[in-house]
């Protein structure tokens, strides 16, 4: 398999500003919509789920380019600076522990996508003062999510279900940093977690960017996200967008996107959904948010999907992540169950599969592949 992390020589030449960002990422269709380049300056903004350039910035170097998860990145260097290399795996990044958990509170589970682990952990971190501010993806208008900032643990519990469309979480982080929050926790997709990691390690200017306020990153497993515009167009053909209450993708054997509405559940074949996938996601090799403190995804259990859908699997990556999970165990916020044998190996295989697909996709894009080293 090709080593597709950018080599260090490329790193130095990889510095750039908005012009390079626009050429290599935005204009190349590789933007993840994470929002890392938004809110630092007046030149980019997010509209719906798309990052747009408002005016030409003209600076040769910018934090926009430095923080973007799709500009060249020395992932190995990043990993060695942020993680204990002894626990790093080639497939999943740092793995200090692997668990099957769910929120003990049934109410949290009901509102959440799966086992409610993320919601429960964020509420716990707020309640215990590990963080004073949490940034989550919440419900926006129609099928559009919106980044929301909460300081009240109860409010954290009100958010939960996925729409498979990205929200500009890092832009929200940039915005919140300007305020009086001191300890910020972020629920992040893999690209958003990578952007935050790059911000922690690559200061480009003396200007304060508030990254030291970042105290917790809870990563989300992610296969891909959908383009809002394309998904909206698809769903409009099936239902009234205002009736959509949530979405999910059961295990791959179903090959279906389930759309929950105020009435019936609509099942759409993934073949039909596939054209709606963001181009950027096809080039992403990070399925498990490797640059987080701990990552959470849907569980796979021998009992089958109906049982598994109310559980999560969790990869703990840092000391801080482990402390939070253990606190949740001690206080009874999370329930744990035994990890089925082979689960971690299956996850590694799936993650490797995504890295492989992404590498092929990148190679197919020609020169672009050379320029956009991606999470490995």
């Amino acid at each position, binding site marked *: 398999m090709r080593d597709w992390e950018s080599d260090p020589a490329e790193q130095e030449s990889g510095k750039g500003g908005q012009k390079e960002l626009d050429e290599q990422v935005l204009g190349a269709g590789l933007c993840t919509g994470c929002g890392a380049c938004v809110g630092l*300056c007046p*030149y980019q903004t997010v509209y719906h789920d798309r990052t*747009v350039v408002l005016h*030409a910035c003209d600076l040769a170097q910018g934090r926009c380019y430095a923080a973007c998860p799709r500009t060249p990145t020395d992932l190995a260097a990043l990993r060695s600076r942020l993680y204990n290399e002894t626990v790093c795996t080639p497939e999943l990044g740092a793995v200090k522990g692997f668990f099957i958990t769910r929120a003990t509170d049934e109410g949290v589970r009901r509102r959440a996508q799966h086992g409610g682990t993320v919601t429960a952990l964020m509420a716990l971190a707020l309640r215990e003062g590990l963080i004073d501010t949490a940034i989550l993806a919440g419900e926006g208008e129609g099928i559009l999510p919106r980044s929301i900032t909460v300081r009240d643990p109860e409010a954290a519990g009100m958010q939960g279900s996925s729409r498979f469309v990205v929200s500009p979480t890092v832009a929200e982080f940039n915005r919140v940093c300007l305020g009086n929050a001191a300890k910020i926790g972020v629920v992040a997709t893999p690209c958003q977690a990578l952007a935050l990691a790059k911000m922690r390690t690559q200061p480009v200017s003396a*200007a304060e960017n508030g990254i030291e306020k970042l105290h917790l990153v809870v990563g989300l497993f992610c296969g891909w996200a959908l383009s809002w515009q394309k998904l909206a167009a698809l769903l409009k053909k099936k239902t009234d967008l205002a009736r959509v209450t949530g979405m999910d993708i059961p295990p791959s054997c179903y090959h279906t996107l389930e759309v929950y509405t105020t009435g019936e559940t609509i099942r759409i074949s993934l073949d039909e959904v596939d054209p709606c996938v963001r181009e950027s996601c096809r080039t992403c090799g990070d399925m498990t948010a490797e640059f987080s403190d701990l990552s959470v995804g849907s569980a796979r259990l021998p009992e089958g999907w109906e049982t598994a859908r109310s559980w999560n699997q969790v990869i703990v990556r840092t000391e801080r992540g482990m402390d939070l999970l253990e606190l949740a165990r001690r206080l009874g916020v999370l329930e744990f169950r035994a990890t089925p044998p082979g689960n971690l190996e299956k996850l590694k295989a799936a993650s490797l599969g995504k890295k492989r697909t992404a590498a092929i996709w990148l190679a197919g894009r020609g020169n672009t592949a050379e320029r956009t080293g991606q999470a490995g």
Partner: protein
Amino acid sequence: MSMDREQKEGAEVLLMGNESIARGALEAGVRVAAGYPGTPSSEIIETLSRFSEAGKLYVEWSTNEKVAMEVAAAASFAGLRSLCVMKQNGVNVASDFLLHLTGSGTRGGMILVSCDDPGALSSVNEGESRHFARLMEIPLLEPADFWEAKEMTRWAFDLSEAIRNVVMVRSVTRMSHASGNVVLGPLPAVTAKAQFLCDGPVSDPDRGPVTSAPVIQKHRLQQEKLRKAAALFEDSPFNTYEGPETPELLIITSSACTLYSREAISLLRAEGRAGILKLGTTWPLPPALLKRHLRRTEKVLIVEEVLPFLEDQVKILAAEQAREIGIKTFYGKNDGTLPMVGELNPDLVAAAVGQILGIDPPAIPAEYREKLRALTAALPKREQTFCPGCPHRASFWGIREALQRDHRGGFVCGDIGCYAMASLFPAAGFHTAKTLHAMGSGTGIASGFGKLGPFGMEQPVLAVCGDSTFYHAAIPALINAVHQNADITFIALDNSGTAMTGFQSHPGLDVNAMGEASPKVDIAALCGAMGVPVTIGDPFDLIGTRVTLNRLLEEPGVKVLILKQSCALSPEKKVKKRFLVRVDEALCRGEACGCNRLCTRIFRCPGLLWNRERKKAEIDEVICAGCGFCAGICPAGAIRSEEAAK
């Protein structure tokens, strides 16, 4: 310097060319004057409006030039002397009516004054209205100085009545906007009662209906009138010759080029070798006069702006008279002796005359050249952009914000007004406006673009149009877009006046050219009556404008957005600032990543300055109009605006 009612007959006063033309009309007893504002013509109607008086002189700013000509024609049909005034491309607008009017003929003396703009100093074209005189078969007069501008205009009314047809007087920017001494003549007591006599037979020019039919008979009659005019031109005092009896080179010229030609000959000290035949009656040319002068020379240089109109006519006459006058060598535009585009000036004419006569133009003295260099180096560099506090800057800022968010490559079809600068200087319109043609054409072009969806065009189409332009020519285009169900967003940039040309009234205002209260025609109501959704917004409401626009861009069909905010130079705004604006230096980020001077680099209101020493923005309190809009664009909130005390 402006002419007023107190000045008496016999007084010698300094008048602008346009004022002199207005004075000529007054001295001729003009009763009705109508026009549409347009540089360099606007001061004629403005001057006349100061002399307006019920029952004595009616003056109006018409909806457009065609209507202005129709209004003036009605006065003529009713036996009054009338005048219509426009800039060069206004004649294009009026030309359909003009074609029929010149066929029907006139009664009271009627003058069409067209002020051309060679070099396009205040235009987006270099159109030549002189060709219309030939095309429409009416006499053409061109004044060459300020006194003549008055005298010629006065005489043009007599000529019009003598031949019973419209007479065209053509000025140029340098004639209309420069000033010279003029001796005022008497203002006649006018008493003629307006009455349209129309009960007679069609063949009766005094009492019959007025039409251009029967066409063949009327057309024949029109050409007889033209021959009569040519005969009168043979002895016209407006055609003069200065120079040797048999000049080595005969310069034939007219209008402001007469002054350039005189200066060129003086510069070359060629008074003994070259003569100037200055023509005031440039169409139809008086053949005998021309024959007399062409006979006495071998070489002929025709000096005129812009196209070779005179040159072509002189050559035709020379060909017709070749047997009697001999073969001449012609110099001018066609052979490249003089440029075929742009304004002329004494240097260009001197170079041409020098080339023909083999004289080197005198070198510019080194001392003079040095002085010139020092003076021009000291001039502050100013870019052409919107004024401080201009609502157009805010409108285009909002449009840019919405189009970039929309992300489908949407663009604006521009139109004629101050906001044309958005098309002419991309940075002024934040790179949104991409077409610019005639008045109202932005909307017509948008209507066409708006039907290209089925051909794969996915870009949203916007049209902008000022309030005066809306009434002038955008209404038919907008109706077309509505009827054809084109997908466009039409934005009326309503700044409550014909701002670019100096706040002339228009149908959207409650006052007319004479300062009388007038009913106003409401743009929103008019658009609403077309059955399309109309939103009214304030361009200074940045977020509101952007959100509204993004919503409208998603909707099919014609959507109308009226962005209403008075011009920063409007009389009510000039009085006081609405906001006191200042920069909080502690918050201003300066050049750090990253606003990178959004305020002075991108937004570029002239009221915002960048202090290079302190590396901070500041407000130029002298020119800041106090609109407060910039407070909303500073990402650091460093620009503060406070409501000014009442």
